[in-house]
């Protein structure tokens, strides 16, 4: 078991290194001089040259590659080309918002999705199941930003229940910031719910036709015990893997949600960096996003090994 865990962790390292390399290369093939882009077209040649020197852009590429890698490992992402603010500080300010949003969305997705999936699987082919399937297909097709706009229209414009814009103050007033979390988290959570429902339903249907479920039933166990202890346990594996997959999708979709709700976060920072052509911020954010996904995939694998020890061998 422990060997499996260690092997998984070690496998993640080369992927992270390659992600870093890819981002490093991509940012350097962006046309135009980043220093020039930062200072604008009318900057003097000396100013551009000074900035290039300060950013380390005049160093040979391998030196830049190593310097930046070690700086990143220390948690030092340099400073923004546009505002001059430390990128590490900016990231440590926005990251809690993105984490809060993603965690809340996953929570909603699992808490609503798994029971709904169980419920529709047990009511197979009747009206409940049918409605559930239509709703989940619509959920799969709606873009996150559009659902966000609809929720704003209903819960912020028509009924003034929740604030539509902003993220509150997570550092000073964590409880108060929950009010701002409701609509964005619902946007992402509901989309994830539909997918989890669909998967739980089909995983349960597969398991329910297994012999051991019939055995459990025939020895007279209560239906509740059969479903929860015998069937759900086996259906859990695909559910865990889809949850892990969805965290990665949600991280992507959170970009749009943060834009729609004008909520501080990594995604909003990313869009800002692209629009302002802030390349040093861009490469840091990219690496963080990918690291996020790699870590989530790692956790998914570890949970897998924990739930089904056969895999670890």
């Amino acid at each position, binding site marked *: 078991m422990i060997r499996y865990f260690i092997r998984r962790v070690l496998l993640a390292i*080369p*992927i*992270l290194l*390659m*992600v870093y390399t*890819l*981002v490093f290369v*991509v940012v350097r*093939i*962006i*046309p135009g001089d980043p220093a020039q882009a930062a200072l604008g077209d009318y900057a003097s040649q000396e100013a551009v040259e000074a900035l290039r020197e300060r950013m380390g852009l005049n160093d040979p590429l391998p030196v830049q590659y190593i310097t930046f890698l070690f700086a990143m490992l220390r948690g030092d992402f340099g400073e923004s080309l546009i505002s001059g603010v430390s990128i590490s500080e900016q990231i440590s300010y926005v990251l809690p918002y993105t984490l809060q949003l993603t965690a809340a969305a996953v929570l909603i997705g699992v808490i609503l999705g798994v029971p709904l999936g169980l419920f529709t699987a047990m009511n197979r082919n009747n009206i409940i199941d049918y409605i559930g399937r239509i709703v989940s*297909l*619509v959920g*799969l*097709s*709606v*873009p*996150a*930003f*559009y659902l966000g*706009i*609809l929720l*704003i*229209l209903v819960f912020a*414009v028509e009924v003034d229940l929740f604030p539509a814009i902003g993220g509150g103050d997570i550092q000073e007033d964590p409880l108060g910031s929950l009010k701002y979390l409701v609509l964005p988290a619902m946007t992402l959570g509901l989309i994830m719910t539909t997918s989890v429902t669909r998967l739980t*339903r*089909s995983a349960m*249907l597969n398991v329910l036709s297994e012999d051991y479920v019939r055995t459990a039933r025939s020895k007279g166990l209560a239906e509740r015990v059969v479903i929860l202890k015998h069937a759900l346990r086996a259906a859990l594996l695909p559910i865990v893997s889809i949850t892990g997959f969805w965290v*990665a*999708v949600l*991280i*992507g*979709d959170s*970009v*749009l949600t943060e*834009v*729609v709700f004008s909520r501080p976060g990594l995604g909003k920072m*990313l*869009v800002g960096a*692209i*629009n302002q052509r802030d390349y040093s911020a*861009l490469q840091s954010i*990219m690496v963080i*996003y*990918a690291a996020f*996904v*790699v870590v989530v*995939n790692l956790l998914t694998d570890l949970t897998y090994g924990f739930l089904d020890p056969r895999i670890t061998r």
Partner: protein
Amino acid sequence: MAEMTQDTVTLEQPAVRLRSQRERLWNTFTRNRTAVFGLLLAILIVLMAVFADDWFIAIFQDREPQPLLAPYDPTKQDPRNRLEEPSEVHRMGLDTLGRDVLSRIIYGARVSLMVGILSVALGGVIGTFLGLFAGYTGGKVEGVIMRSVDVLMAFPSLIMGLMVLAVLGPGIPNMIIAIGIMLSPAFVRIVHSSTLGTKENDYVLAARAIGVSQWRMIRIHILPNILGEAIVLASVYTATAIRIEANLSFIGLGVSPPTPAWGTMIRDGTQYLTIAPWISIFPGLAILITVLAFNLLGDGMRDIMDPKSYS
């Protein structure tokens, strides 16, 4: 069958078997009524995009195309009546510059479908080629390709698209490239694993034994067997591509104005949600319906390939 002579049976057998195979696939598809509904809906949307204006007549008369299905010119502004609510004259109201929202939605289908279909075609061709190459050659090449795919898969797909667009700059062709690159890893993985499976068949061994060339081997013996799966994947991903296009347009990396695109229209409307919600609501519905149509169609295609997954 009993009355048939020995001769007719041997002569007709292959033809009968082929037709019944195709029929069986079609029957599986049509049995899934939601998939047929999706197909019809998708055809309607394609027709709407094609016949938005009379370009197919205008091209021969050497003039600007006139709106055909669309009631108005989608770029004609009427600033005096901007933000006008839906009425008999303008069924879906007017937008921030006084342009007819319904006409812009009908024209906007062109961008969505073009980006959706072309990006899937691009990603599908690249991905199928690389997956086939990796699976067929094996060894170091396979290792390099598959590890690169792992790295690409480490980025959330939308982030990947944003990164590519940051390099290339906004616009339709770049968006097609970005979404194509984004979707290709999935094709590589599927085609790779199904090439590995196909390669093990005895007829491949037999073909190799009689000295068939590499090119012919791939083209005649392997490609036809993996094409089905690639096509199914393409139909599933068309919905995804259309949704991503809407996302990127919404961020502002899509077509430049005044060309109408659904994501861009929603973006324009967000400033006016409280006073003119129709500017955003209707294009969003258009995206929802289109993506739903292609999702239903994709589900049906997947059932054809794998009847087990039908539940």
